[in-house]
């Protein structure tokens, strides 16, 4: 027969629950009264929350609560505040000329900070987070500029891009001399070696300078110039320097001459506001290579 009387543990003086495992009995220690009261109060409090704050999901929306609180509205307020704070400074940035921004430590710091952020969001995918570039994507830290490295030229390139389809975009491209049948393979090899020799790089055995010079003079000088120093108006790179956008080995140069090159820089006008583009130009210029 079950014993219904409460069993008291002799050591602690506390009632047991009557449950027993491996001869160990469970003590019946109820929760403290204050704890239980606090627990029930917090449940009541939670119910109050349902009515005051957004709480229950509905089919297409949710209950909004008496206070009409919304974290999205909070964000909107914060963003408006940010715009207000930033606004005054950005107006100052917009009013100053590019050269004056670089001379004013406060504006320079602002432009660099703004530029760095926007660069990370928009430019880093191609140019890299530190603007160090990659094959086909120019390194913006160096002093070699396809379309010119002054503040105004940099800003123009950012605004309208290169071969971007924008009406004011930089145009001009490296033709596919091999693919289009303008040059024969042996002519291409010759001119490739000529171009490498311009930068002091080695030429392949049996290369005749005369052949390379002839091909270069007939086909390349129009854009790259008599001395191979390039032309920023056309985006024709300087062939005599140490920087090679697509690589300096013979195969890479032959590839460029055979199939042509026409890297695209998007136009940012309309996608970024004018003041931001200005900040970007200053930022890129200040990376170290600006002229």
């Amino acid at each position, binding site marked *: 027969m079950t014993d219904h009387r409460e069993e008291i543990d002799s050591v602690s003086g506390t009632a047991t629950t009557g449950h027993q495992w491996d001869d160990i009995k469970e003590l019946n220690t109820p929760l403290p009264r204050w704890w239980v009261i606090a627990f029930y109060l917090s449940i009541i409090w939670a119910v109050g929350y349902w009515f005051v704050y957004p709480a229950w999901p509905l089919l297409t929306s949710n209950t909004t609560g008496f206070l009409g609180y919304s974290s999205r509205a909070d964000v909107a307020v914060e963003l408006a505040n940010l715009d207000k704070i930033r606004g005054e400074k950005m107006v100052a940035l917009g009013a100053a000329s590019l050269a004056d921004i670089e001379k004013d*430590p406060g504006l320079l710091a602002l432009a660099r900070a703004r530029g760095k952020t926007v660069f990370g969001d928009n430019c880093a995918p191609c140019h890299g987070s530190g603007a160090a570039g990659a094959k086909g994507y120019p390194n913006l830290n160096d002093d070699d500029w396809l379309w010119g490295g002054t503040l105004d030229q940099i800003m123009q390139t950012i605004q309208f891009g290169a071969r971007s389809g924008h009406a004011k975009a930089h145009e001009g491209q490296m033709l596919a001399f091999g693919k289009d049948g303008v040059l024969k393979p042996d002519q291409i090899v010759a001119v490739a070696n000529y171009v490498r020799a311009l930068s002091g790089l080695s030429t392949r055995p049996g290369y005749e300078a005369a052949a390379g010079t002839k091909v270069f003079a007939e086909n390349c000088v129009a854009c790259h110039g008599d001395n191979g120093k390039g032309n920023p108006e056309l985006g024709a790179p300087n062939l005599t320097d*140490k920087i090679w956008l697509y690589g300096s080995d013979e195969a890479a140069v032959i590839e460029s001459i055979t199939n042509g090159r026409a890297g695209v820089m998007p136009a940012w006008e309309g996608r970024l506001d004018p003041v931001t583009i200005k900040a970007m130009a200053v930022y890129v210029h200040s990376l170290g290579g600006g002229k």
Partner: protein
Amino acid sequence: MNKPAPPADLQYDDVGPLYAARKKVYPQSVSGTFRRIKWGLMAVCLGIYYFLPFVRWNRGLGAPDQAVLIDFPNRRFYFFFIELWPQEVYYFTGLLIIAAVALFLMNAIGGRIWCGYLCPQTVWTDLFYAVERLIEGDRRERMKKDASADPMRLERISEIVLKHSIWLLIAWWTGGAWVLYFSDAPTLVKELVTFQAPMTAYIWIAMLTASTYLLAGFMREQVCTYMCPWPRIQAALTDEWALNVTYEYDRGEKRTSLKKAAELRAQGERVGDCIDCYQCVAVCPTGIDIRNGPQLECIQCGLCIDACDSVMTRIGRPTRLIGYDNDINIQRREAGKPPIYRVVRPRTIVYSSVIAVVGAIMLYALLTRSLLDVNVLHDRNPVAVKLSDGSIRNAYTVRLLNKRGFDRVIAIDVDGPVNATVHVVGVDSVTPDRPMIVVGRDQTAEFRVLVTAPADSNPEKSVPVRFHVTDVGLGEVASATDNFVSP
């Protein structure tokens, strides 16, 4: 169900409950040497605490003129002629070491001097007891009033209300003084009064009002007995030579009433000086009996010494039956030898030396600390840039710190790669080889510095580069080292 009784060693009857109800302490007023010392120290400590924020110190135009100010928004700490920047918090490490060792030294010399005289808990509790005594009367009256079963009269209610009002006023002033250390005091007082002070000021005042009121008005000696770690540490740190508030049982025992003692003395018997008057217990703010020997609860405030001395004087026996002493001397006196006091011991020498050494290091560091500094951070991406003529360029973020109260022209010299040139972005220096930069007073300025080395001039993958900065006007210098890397 019948259970066999647990074996004897498993019976817990000797272990009492873990909870003990507080026995309210009613310390009696007392006068004497130690009481006077305590009043004096209380006046000094509270005076410094409450009034220091109002002390002015001229630092020139544009700088705060508060002698002691923790300026969080501008990240500066001002202490009279010292101004510290956040990166100099190591001075506080030194201060904390000195504070800890000074505590050890006090303990080695005179026991819990800190607890008895200087600890804020003691000072404020003492002040609150003084208020209580002034309004509700001394020990016996307070005990009687508390024990009275009569319904409260208006007089008693007004007493209680008055006491708590004054307590709250002191507590509020305590919290109020605290926030004044973090902002210009006169301005903040004005703002507080006109309810224009920042919410954080009111919150901090409220929190410190609450903690002062509760700790000094209600928890009192329980803070020392249960909350504070120092009594435990102190007990482990002390030695047999340290002087503690001690009942000299060699002289005091055997306790006899005054009348009986006279009779016994007349018969030529030896009797103790303690007449069991319990005055030492009555004045004790922690409610213990010092005659039971050294106890964890005892904060060694010395009030029992005053109480006993006045009794001994009245009955014509020598004073200092309770006094600063130790067991060694009690045993020596019992053996008929003179007491000896050894303040100079290995531990006091070591503690004093540590304080002296750390203090000297701090003083040296403070006197020779640089008011011009430079930090250099190498660009991580790209690490190095090859230019069109084959030369190599590294970019660095250079931060200049001008800790003086005026603008300064700083020249940058770079000592690194052979034939390297330096350019600071945004700075058109008239001296291109040695760029000059203006750094505003009491601030830092960050610049992008480009170092370019000619092609093939540096065969090493990485060479050290040193940035020397010089204050052109004062000749102060600072430098920082980084590396120049080739791709």
